[in-house]
């Protein structure tokens, strides 16, 4: 996913700009750590069926709530959950679920948001006014609340949670893209394009879109982290992934009361998994922003 968008960018933004960004990125240690985490996550997600020791949904009730390696249990490295399912396998498969939810939700959000943002910023006037008032309304609601409302309309389930999160992300993206579009719109090369009589859609496609793309890419990376967190929150509330799907948030929710009973591992490891993956996307996103955004780069 990441690589793909970067390639697209490469096509449209001059080579030197990309090269420069990449060099800046390489200097940023935390961004590289973030990138490493993301690559590992993607690897784990893709090859979950090969590297996980057991099936994530195979239950063995008589072997439930067993501690893992710290108690000498190397069969279930991270222990087992309340149904005797192997926690490590569930976390590995959970990466697949969480990652795909994060990415797909953000793609939905980016698509909707950029569309609204670009048209709003480029055409301005009444259309801009209407679209921005709509996003204002969506902004008035906390994003997780909005997601809950949308999920309760659409129904429970992972695919609906993705759509819900995507929709809640679109207004933020629309705002960012809109302001960027307005800036680009007033530059001289757009004036020039207009002057030689290029049609509006062509200007949008060839001149505006490539120039706002860098903002979109940065926003995508940063949003994936929070989208994973939101998906976990929905799962925690029982509105996202449905049992027996291994999803980190749902795993956390189902096992939180075992902490009082002394079975700390059941809730701790899914929590750590969420933490690490969100951290990875945020670190990388931050680094990417610093690297791509020319205004920020100058300050460095």
């Amino acid at each position, binding site marked *: 996913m990441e690589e793909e968008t970067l390639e697209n960018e490469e096509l449209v933004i001059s080579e030197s700009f990309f090269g420069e960004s990449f060099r800046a990125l390489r200097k940023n240690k935390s961004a590289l750590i973030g990138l490493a985490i993301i690559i590992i996550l993607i690897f784990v997600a893709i090859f979950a069926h090969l590297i996980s020791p057991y099936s994530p949904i195979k*239950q063995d009730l008589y072997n439930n709530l067993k501690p893992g390696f710290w108690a000498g249990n190397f069969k279930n490295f991270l222990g087992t959950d309340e149904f005797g399912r192997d926690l490590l396998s569930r976390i590995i498969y959970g990466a697949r679920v969480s990652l795909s939810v994060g990415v797909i939700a953000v793609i939905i959000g980016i698509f909707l948001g950029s569309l609204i943002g670009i048209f709003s910023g480029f055409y301005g006037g009444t259309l801009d006014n209407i679209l921005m008032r709509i996003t204002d309304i969506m902004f008035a609601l906390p994003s997780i609340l909005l997601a809950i409302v949308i999920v309760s309309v659409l129904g429970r389930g992972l695919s609906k949670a993705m759509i819900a999160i995507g929709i809640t992300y679109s207004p933020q993206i629309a705002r960012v893209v809109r302001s960027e579009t307005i800036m680009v719109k007033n530059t001289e090369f757009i004036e020039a394009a207009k002057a030689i009589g290029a049609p509006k859609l062509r200007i949008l496609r060839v001149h505006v879109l490539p120039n706002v793309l860098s903002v979109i890419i940065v926003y995508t990376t940063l949003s994936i982290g929070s989208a994973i967190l939101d998906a976990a929150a929905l799962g925690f509330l*029982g509105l996202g992934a*449905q049992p027996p799907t291994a999803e980190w948030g749902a795993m956390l929710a*189902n096992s939180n*009361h075992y902490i*009082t*009973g*002394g079975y700390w591992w059941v809730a701790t490891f899914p929590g750590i998994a969420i933490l690490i993956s969100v951290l990875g996307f945020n670190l990388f996103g931050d680094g990417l922003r610093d690297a791509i955004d020319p205004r920020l780069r100058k300050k460095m």
Partner: protein
Amino acid sequence: MKRILLLTVVAVLLVSLFYGCTPKASQPVTLVFAKAGDAVELDPADVTDGESVTVMNNIFEGLVRYKPGTTEIEPWLATSWDVSSDGLSWTFHLRQGVKFHDGTPFNADAVVFSYERQRDPEHPFHKYGKWEYWGYCFSEIAKTEKVDDYTVKITLSRPFAPFISTMAMFTVNVVSPTNCEKWGDQWFAHPVGTGPFKFVEWVKGDHITLEKNQDYWGEKAKIDKLIFKVVPDASQRYLALQKGEVQGIEFPNPDDLSKIEQDPNLAILSQPGVNVGYLAMNVGEDTPGFQKPFGDVRVRQAINYAINKKAIVDQLYKGTAVVAKNPIPPTLWGYNDAIQDYEYNPTKAKELLKEAGYPDGFKTQLWAMPVSRPYMFDPQKIATAIQADLKAVGIDAEIVSYDWGTYLQKTENGEHPMALLGWTADYADPDNFLYVLLDSDSATVGSAGNIAFYRNPEVHKLNMESQKETDQAKRIELYKQVQQIVHDDAPWVTLAHAKQILVFSKKVQGFVLYPTGDYHFESVTISQ
């Protein structure tokens, strides 16, 4: 200017700090009890669920009641009664000088009003309720009449062996007629009875507050205020109890019990419950949730073979229950111990599915309650375990859940293919299980107690016979036959009979467990 404003704010805050410290005359004694779910309604005749009943136990009273902690009947709002020789005509002599919380005198009119509104479709208040229980347990009552101000005559259309036991049920608690007239269709949220506690407020989904009835006719309650707080999560209930936010909780998490036992400030009250937790498979072809496979007895038996009940009881109930093989618990008379339970045998389950024409299984839904129930502490967990067991024989079940009130309504409508539910006895008679939960009379779409919509004419015939029979030994025989038929037809997977477990702070004394799962707080004291 800004400084003055700041000073004023600080001054106001300081004053308010001391305001709270003024000594109060006497602190009212308050008990907060954490419940797993909110009441659905507070009209005793219009509910079927324990969460509503346990609140109303303290507000309403009936003509007779159970002696605390037993299922023995003793006179209560009626001081005595006479039965005609044919068992069809019952005359109750009412207690005098009793008043409802709103000041209305308790008399024959109130009793007739309370019963006739449920029975008579022409009654002006009949339209305000569904009166499920009247259909389950009181359909034999032909008429309730006033003889004089303090005498009531109830005529039965047919002899009904458990009649006097059923008269202790919440359904026939007496309600204030003036209050019903005042609130009309909203009366279910403004209950007025004669009990030891008065209703104060109900914040839906959060808490119900009751206060001591100062004018109670009998022994007055020892606490001033009783608050039922809704805390759906078992570990949160436990934490609230540990922190002293509440003084009692129901349905602790089985995993926490060993910890609770070690806590010197907490006391566990426990006894075998007269209940059953089950998985009903919808066989009613006229219901919206009916799925073809469940019409086949081989599929239902396969599901019985596929579920590892023992593992569920051992590892999820953590020994707070026994495996169920019959719809009625072994603590109740009439239990058929000769029945051979379906053992856990996935291979046999697969064979049966193949025979029935579903070698690759099928897709279905498994409904699970959203709240802890006395017969099932964590329905969602049990549903997940069952889901995995079914998956192992090829049946793909999606877990479906609604909020508690909706869940009950939808299962009564038969919108589920498979649903978890359970039952706690209202009176100690197999009739309360086998008639209410498995008879064709109770399988009416929209107000079903029999949510498997299992309608076997043979079962119905035996149930009817037993209701008329007064010889206990013969009734036992009839009920044993019913259990055998139900076992063979397998409309349910009987899962477990759970122990009734409540946890109180050691400061709380005098709470008595009822086999029927009722909560009566009038005898409770709190030491400081």
